[in-house]
Structures are given as structure tokens and as C-alpha cells.
């Protein structure tokens, strides 16, 4: 597991998460805050849970499954991870 960040910079977090999301997205897909996970990147609900598990390992956090269903955009994902990192302190 990589060292976790405690006070995430949103831009840096977007860039880092973009790298992880790219593994689940079609090659060359645009990865911005407004990018929609399902319609733009074809990341279905099952793939989203696998993606979140990669993110959990990267940052040493646990994202409740209940919150994954609410994710629409990459920005939502960034905000969710930022909240979890912030909650952990």
C-alpha cells in the first residue's frame, strides 16, 4: 500500500484518480471532473466497485458500498475520496 495523503489537494487527487480510472476506461478517454463514469467511460456498477477497491488500497481508506451508487461523474469520485481522507484525518 502506498502512503496515504491526509489533506488532499483537489487537483492532485483528480490527477491521481484519473490514472486509476484510466485502467477501467476506454483508451484515450477524456478524464475531467465532469466526465460521467457510466455514459462516458462505460464503467458499470460492478466495474465501479472494482475501481473503488483499487482506490481504497491506494489510499488506505474504505468507501462504503452504499455511497458508490451515488457516483455519477469523476468529480463525484474525487469529492467522495476527499471526504473519506478528510474523515480519516
Amino acid at each position, binding site marked *: 500500500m502506498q502512503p496515504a495523503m491526509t489533506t488532499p489537494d483537489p487537483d492532485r487527487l483528480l490527477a491521481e484518480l484519473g490514472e486509476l480510472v484510466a485502467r477501467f476506461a476506454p483508451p484515450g478517454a477524456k478524464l475531467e471532473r465532469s466526465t460521467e463514469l*457510466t455514459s462516458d467511460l*462505460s464503467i*458499470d*456498477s*460492478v*466495474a465501479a*466497485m*472494482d475501481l473503488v*477497491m483499487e482506490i481504497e488500497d491506494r489510499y*488506505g*481508506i*474504505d468507501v*462504503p*458500498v*452504499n455511497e458508490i451508487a451515488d457516483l455519477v461523474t469523476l468529480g463525484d469520485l474525487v469529492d467522495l475520496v476527499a471526504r473519506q481522507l478528510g474523515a480519516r484525518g
Partner: protein
Amino acid sequence: MDIFDKYGTLAQRRAQLLATGIDPFQLEIEDLAGPCEATIRGRRTILLGTNNYLGLTFDPVCIEAGVEALRRYGTGTTGSRIANGTYAGHRALEAELAAFMGRRAAIVFTTGYQANLATIAGLAGAKDTIFVDSDWHASIFDGCLLSGAKVVRFRHNDPEDLDRRLERNPTPGGCRLIVVEGLYSMFGDVARLSEIVAVKKKHGAFLLLDEAHSFGVFGRRGRGVAEELGVEGEVDFIVGTFSKSLGGIGGFAVSDHPRFELLRVAARPYMFTASPGPATIASVRAALAQIAARPELRARLWETARTLHAGLVRLGFVLAAPPGPILSIRLPDERSAVFAWTSLLESGVYVNLALPPGTPGGACLLRCSVSAAHTAEHLEIVLDRFASLAAALARPVAAE
């Protein structure tokens, strides 16, 4: 906007499958000739994907028990367990299941799906955290969501990952419940239960084990993987189904917890549905007695599983797990999986086609399940058809 618009991707994939001429997920079985043979699309077909592990669906004792109950008690209970749906048979089956599993109490549910839904949602609440294996069955997923608890997934069959996540989620003011399956239904791999139990004890969590596919199949008495691995005393709740080894429909949960019966007034999927019909209860009671009295059924199942596994490996197929009641063959992509499934069906062998998103890790699988009722002749035919399939898959046209 149409209300079905949200299923755009799903509809597209379904249309592609239907274009092959057969819908693998709505296949009609026109007639049956025992537990392992059916007529499908007008052709006699060997069934190798029914989860009918002990072949008891056509056991004469079970059939007679069902017929007698049908005549004596009627076609249905027309009521829930908390109203007019508790008959003497329901109570008797619960007592027999508790005795068979060596537990203080058992509760019977109308389906296996509801057994998980009711037990998980009844046990866990808003202040609790559920730690669940990432290869969860839909009934476990739905039960977790229904509970209102915080749900944390851990990597499939990975006690070390479970340990880390329990460490990170102490859950002050609530309880922690671990949910795993004994035998995983897609790949056919067995839970690392001894190590999971050690993690559970370290953190003081509760453990729920779903033995849907392992009940009647694993363990000296057929109680499941917990018995096989000698850890029954550390498993707080076991859930099972009637629709596999017991050859019926319904489910159960057992426990030694002194307050377990509170689920009867707390678990909504138990309370607000009609109870299992009398014929089902009677045939399941008879099947349970058969499992207890005829250990040779399990021996035959395992012998068949080992023979088929070895034969498939010899033909060059990649199996997802060691020999067991579920033998899953990995195929490289959806197209070859659909081709293989269709080819087998057209040659008189039915297996399950398992595709993403219903499979872990996006795997494309031909899922076979073995039965104690499969004969040597069945196996010979099946392996012959798989040999033809292996040759077809090796040809460039099939692989392109």
C-alpha cells in the same frame, strides 16, 4: 424519456445475445427425464448446469412426500409465517434442520434469496458495519443494502485484506458482521474459512456463512464447508438454500445465538411473504433425511467431479478451481463463451453461461455443476462433446 432508457447498455448487450438465435438466459426446458436429462429445443440434452448436486429432485421418497402433503394440506399456505402460514411441517423442518446442523435453532424462508436478505438485513442495522467478500451473491448484496448498515467489501477470499479493513473500521457503538460464502458459485472456489475465523476472533466480529452451494456436499455429515474445515463452533450464523442439494425451493438460517429467534419479528423478508408451500416443505424434509442417511450420494458426486475435472483439463480447458461440485471453464472473451455455450447446447449438453457484469473480474465462464445422478455414460458423452468444442475453439474462425 422512457422509463426503460436507463437500461440502454443492458438492452444493447441483450440484443446482441438474442441475435445468436438462442437466449441463454431464458432457455426453455420442454421436458425432463430425471435430474440429469431434459428435452431442450426438441433435443435430448444432458444437464450439466442445474446445481442439483445430489440429484434428489426425482428421488421417489421425496416425490411421494410432496404428493402426500399436497393432498393433505393443499397447494399453498396463502399466508405469511406471522399470520396463518406456520404449519406443523414448517416447525418440524426447522427442528430437523437445527438437529442436522447441530445448532440451537433454525428458521425457514420462502426462497434462498430471502434467507440471505432476511438474515443479513435482520442482523445488521444502521449503526453496524458489514464486511463482505467482493464476490458476493446478489442476495447478499441486496441484504446488505436493505440492512442500512455501512457496507465494506474486502478482496475475494483474502483474510489479510479483511483484517486490514476491520482494523480501519472499529465501528464504535455498533457491531461488525463478516459475510462470506462456503463455496463460491461462479468460480467454484472454497472459502479460506479457518483464516477468516482467526481474523473474526481477533476483532470480535460476528461471522455469517452462506453454505448455499456447499450444504449437502462438504463435510462428513454434509453440513458444509464449516464442518469440512472443523470451524463450525466459530461460525455464528449459517444460511443455506433448499434449491440445490435439497432439490426444492426455499432457504434456512441456523444459529446457536440465544436471541436468534428475534429475526422472526425483525426480518421483513421473513415476515411479509407467504410461507413455503406444504409440498415443498415435505419434499425438503424427505431430502434432508436422504442426505443424512445416504453419504454415498456425496461420495458419488465427488468421484464424478474429479473425473470430469481431469477430463476437461486433459482437453486443454482452463478450470477456475480444483475439482468440486462447480467446475467453471474460463474462456477468453464473451464471443468465444457464447459460441462455446451454443455449440454445447446444439450437441446436447447444457451448461451455464456466465458473463460480466454477473461474474467476478469480468470473467467469461462456462459454468458446469456436477450431480451424484450423473452416470458414467453421461460423462462419456459430455467429454466427447467438450472434445469437439476444444477442436472448434482452436480453429481460427471460432477464435477470431
